[in-house]
């Protein structure tokens, strides 16, 4: 085998080996790499029982209650939901129906005390009038169906 082919083989085999090793490591640590747990996972006991973790999901529509800096809302993954209490300033994108990640710990079986609230945003970008039109046409469709 020529030297060049040897080096080519070395690079290809090396890269394959490193890829497999990385894949194994990532698979092994998959649960540690999770940034947040969903309400379902929390209720199934997959989140840390005593201690701080992050809870993620959607802010349930109509669930936000504000009293000064104190906010109470419900985080849902559309299967299960948890009530969250938070005291502090909320990010701009904190809205009902939007994704949210809250850090804190459980207080009781279905109440979460949050220390930090982070807003997730979707991958969609569009002007406000297009969004209004989209909502309008969806409402019309729903009307036509009912």
């Amino acid at each position: 085998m020529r030297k060049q082919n040897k080096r080519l083989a070395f690079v290809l085999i090396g890269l394959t080996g490193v890829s497999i090793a990385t894949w194994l490591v990532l698979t092994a640590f998959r649960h540690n790499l999770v940034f947040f747990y969903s309400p379902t996972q929390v209720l199934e006991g997959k989140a840390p029982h005593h201690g701080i973790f992050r809870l993620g999901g959607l802010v349930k529509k109509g669930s936000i209650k504000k009293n000064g800096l104190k906010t109470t809302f419900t985080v849902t993954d559309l299967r299960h939901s948890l009530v969250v209490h938070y005291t502090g300033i909320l990010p701009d994108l904190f809205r009902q129906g939007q994704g949210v990640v809250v850090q804190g710990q459980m207080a009781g079986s279905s109440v979460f005390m949050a220390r930090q609230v982070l807003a997730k945003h979707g991958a969609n970008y569009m002007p406000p009038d297009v969004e209004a039109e989209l909502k309008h046409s969806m409402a019309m469709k729903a009307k036509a169906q009912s």
Partner: protein
Amino acid sequence: MGEFGGFAGVSRLIKFIHKYGAPKRFYRLAGRLVPWFAGVTALLFVVGLYLGLYWAPPDYQQGDAYRIMFVHVPNAWMSMMAYVIMASFAATGYIWNVRLADIMAKATAPLGASFTLTALVTGSLWGKPMWGTWWVWDARLTSELILFFLYVGYMALQASIDDPRRAAHASAILAIVGVVNIPIIHYSVYWWHTLHQPASLTLTSQPKIYITMLIPLIIMSLAFMFFYFTMLLVRVRSEILVREQRTDWVRKLVRSKR
């Protein structure tokens, strides 16, 4: 055994590169190309920034704050693209002993590092008002930070070895190994729960960005791409001069410029 059948084409290509990729020839060719690339870069930036900052409508969720996307997204794309280019050149230089490929890889590293840093900083500035935090250790942000360290490590390794050929070989291995990080960055938002949202643009589905916002984004991405090629040519030219400083053609060139 002589050559694998399938490699005959590759080896012919390599011979071609050896002939026309001679540093002296490439120095002149790059010199002629630089003004054109720089002109296209400037034009794309002017058009892209105008469209992005004035022409594009505000976003239904983020208002005008989303406009940082026109800098953040192209830099994030280029940070990954530059790495793949760097690793490919490094591998070509390592396997087939192409000097010009070594130079290209070395010249790409600081450019890629600056794209990565810009992506991280603009992302942080965007994250504070929208997410409510400058930084979180989620998979996307962390893997992009690792990309930055890979670039820095590559540059440090290059700088620590005096002999250019040995420096190229050692750092090529690092560059090639680091390639595994690229798919991790890309798929991090699908494999794990992350604060960072999934991609708005994919090859397989409809873009999730409205057309009047998508056009400036594409123009800005082309602008940063052409910026990269312009700077690459400039950096490769100066690296060639340094490496060939003892040759006749460089001495003649320097004398004629005095």
